[in-house]
């Protein structure tokens, strides 16, 4: 494991996350959001779960980012208006971060070296998915269909007007 690579990736992720969170321009924020997910995928690669990384890229960068961008397009009319930025959110976020860090630091069992592990192959994931996780897979399938149909109905414009 190369810490350097990891630090780079971590820095990338956090900077783009911050950009997505704070960038006043909507479109830039959305794009930095997408890039951030690329960075996250990279960190997954580093952690040895390529498949998840790829899926992450595939789903987020491929679909969600596009969706977000399209939504921004569809709601462009008031996008330009300058939006306030309430600082209480920031305060809370920092507080929570401090809390979490404290928790992590406190629990000694966490600081452990990565265990030697043979690469996770897609075949193993396939077997697991189709084996003991077949039921969740079906549920997620149903969930996704339902969600998408729901989203469609929400958004579809009634042609009869």
């Amino acid at each position: 494991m190369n810490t350097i690579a990891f630090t780079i990736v971590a820095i990338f992720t956090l900077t783009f996350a911050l950009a997505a969170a704070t960038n006043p321009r909507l479109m830039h924020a959305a794009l930095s959001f997408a890039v951030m997910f690329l960075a996250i995928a990279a960190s997954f690669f580093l952690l040895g779960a390529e498949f998840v990384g790829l899926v992450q890229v595939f789903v987020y960068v491929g679909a969600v980012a596009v969706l977000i961008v399209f939504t921004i397009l569809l709601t462009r009319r008031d996008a330009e208006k300058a939006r306030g930025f309430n600082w209480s959110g920031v305060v809370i976020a920092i507080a929570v971060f401090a809390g979490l860090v404290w928790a992590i630091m406190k629990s000694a069992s966490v600081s452990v070296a990565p265990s030697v592990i043979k690469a996770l192959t897609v075949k193993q994931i396939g077997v697991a998915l189709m084996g003991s996780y077949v039921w969740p897979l079906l549920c997620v399938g149903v969930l996704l269909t339902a969600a998408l149909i729901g989203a469609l109905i929400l958004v579809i414009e009634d042609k009869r007007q």
Partner: protein
Amino acid sequence: MSSWITHNVWLIPAMPIVVAVFILSIGKHARMTSAIFAVLGQVMALAVSIFAFAPTLHTHGFRVVENFTWFTFGDQHLRIGFVLDPLAAAMLVMISLVGLCIFVFSIGYMAEDKNFSRFFAYLSFFSGAMLGVVVANSLFLLFIFWELVGLASYLLIGFWIERPSAAAAAKKAFITTRVGDMGFFLGLLLLYHVTGTLVFYDNGGGALEPAALAKIGSSVTLVALLIFCGAVGKSGQFPLHVWLPDAMEGPTPVSALIHAATMVAAGVFLVARVYPIFAVGAINGVTPSLEVVVWIGVVTGLMAALIAVAQSDIKRILAYSTISQLGLMMVSLGVGGVAAGIMHLLAHGFFKALLFLGAGSVIHGLHHEQDIRKMGDLRHLMPVTFATYAVGMMALSGVPFFFSGAWTKEEILHATESWPRSHVPHYLMMIGVVLTALYMTRQIIYVFFGNSRGHANEARESPRVMTIPLIVLAVCAIAFSVVLTPAWPWLSCYLMGVPTFTDVHDPSRAIDLLLLLDPEFTFRILISLVLVGAGIGFGVWLYRRAGDVDPLQQKFPAPFRFLENKMWIDELYERTVIAISALAARISDWMDRNVWDGIVRGFGFIGQLFGAFTTDTDENVINAGVDETTGGARGFGRVMSRLHSGQIQIYLGAVALGMLALLLFYAWLT
């Protein structure tokens, strides 16, 4: 024909009652029809009685019983019935005959009265009830007729309801007799409890038959005495005699019928009828109950005779004389002379009715004047009344030979003489006889002899319709003595159900005149002659020049006043019994008003209290509490709603803070 009547004896009481109901129903104005019907009813009753009397002569110890079950109650059967035996038959004839004379007399006496028909209805109703008492074979049926007689006497005494004294007298009579009847009823119940049946003669099963008598056992005295209470009440014996003198408020025929001949006799008849119960366990003829009867009789007889001497009202004198005579009869029954008692009862019925009717005609003649001190020298103005009245007086005071009263009195004195317990009653009764003769002579002198006082001079002889019954009764008083003489003891044997002396030995010498000459018999007649002679002579001597004021009163004013006021017995009762009952009434009223009512009001109060308590708790505890909580809830609700500002980010911030808090808590824990 006659056998049919013996079995249907109930017809005799039924007829007068039916006539009474008929008279009441035809209304007030049919005066003469009601009178005729009443008399007719009485005549029918008399005829049937005579027909019933005839067959009883042939056999000794004749008794025909007609019983039936009135109603069954569970396993108890109430049997009642009618009986015909010498005692009943004799009484039937006497009552109906006397009744008839009184009916005829009262037609004249009550002529001007506006309630004429109602009077006759009550009279026939009374005579029916009296006849019923005589023929009843069950103590229960006898008790029923007994009560009807009581009711009839109440109605008749209080006939002139508009006069308050009459109403009070009726009420007094009814209540006093009721007291006696209570005792009678308890006796009846006890008898039923002990023997299981109330019928007198039920071919072996009856109460008066040996089987039941054996069963009575120890409580016989109690039963006898309780039944005797009824007799005391009805016949006006010592403790309960107070109502009789006041009963004179009623019209004179009423007094005659009820308070001379019949009703008062009912008590004596009852004792005679129920005699076997009294006689159970008699040791040579003496039982505790009979002793009580004797002493009650003696006391009553003597007391009444003394009071009669000091009375000034013509009817009150006769009333007290009746009480005295009844006492005498009770004594004769007590000492065992049942036949003598009954014979005296019959004789007394006749001559006492005669005296009362005579007094009635005197009063009628003097326009309702009753005080003898305002009468006098009436023998020339009312000769028939005077003659019949003299016959009655002679019979009552017991002048021997020709008059019925003498013979029966003779018999009674003979019976008391042979009473083993003590001779005191015998001597007291002799004094009684003397006193009777004394007050009767006083009365006759005051009324018919001496100088006329008051309005006596305007007296006129009563009309024929009144004098005929007087004459009939006078003849009866004299003729009756034929049967009563010991020479021909037919009646006593008939009554006792014993074959006469002669039948047994020598049927040919039915009448034994020689007996009269028997030395032992002549001695008894001599004694009675001496007693009566003393009484009359002392009376004539004492009252010959009597003025307005009674000579005895001049000599012994204190005792005279004592007697004149009826020995203060009324006042005694007034203070004691009535006072006590008034007090009891007041107490119960007080109790009811304060204690029970108090308790109820107390509960009510508690209820109110509880109600008040609940309302105000509800008011300020619960309501207030509820208001508070609702107010609090609304306040809290408002606070919470402000929290829900609709800002999503605030919610998310809250979530984050919550998580942080948890974290801190966790930190604090470890």
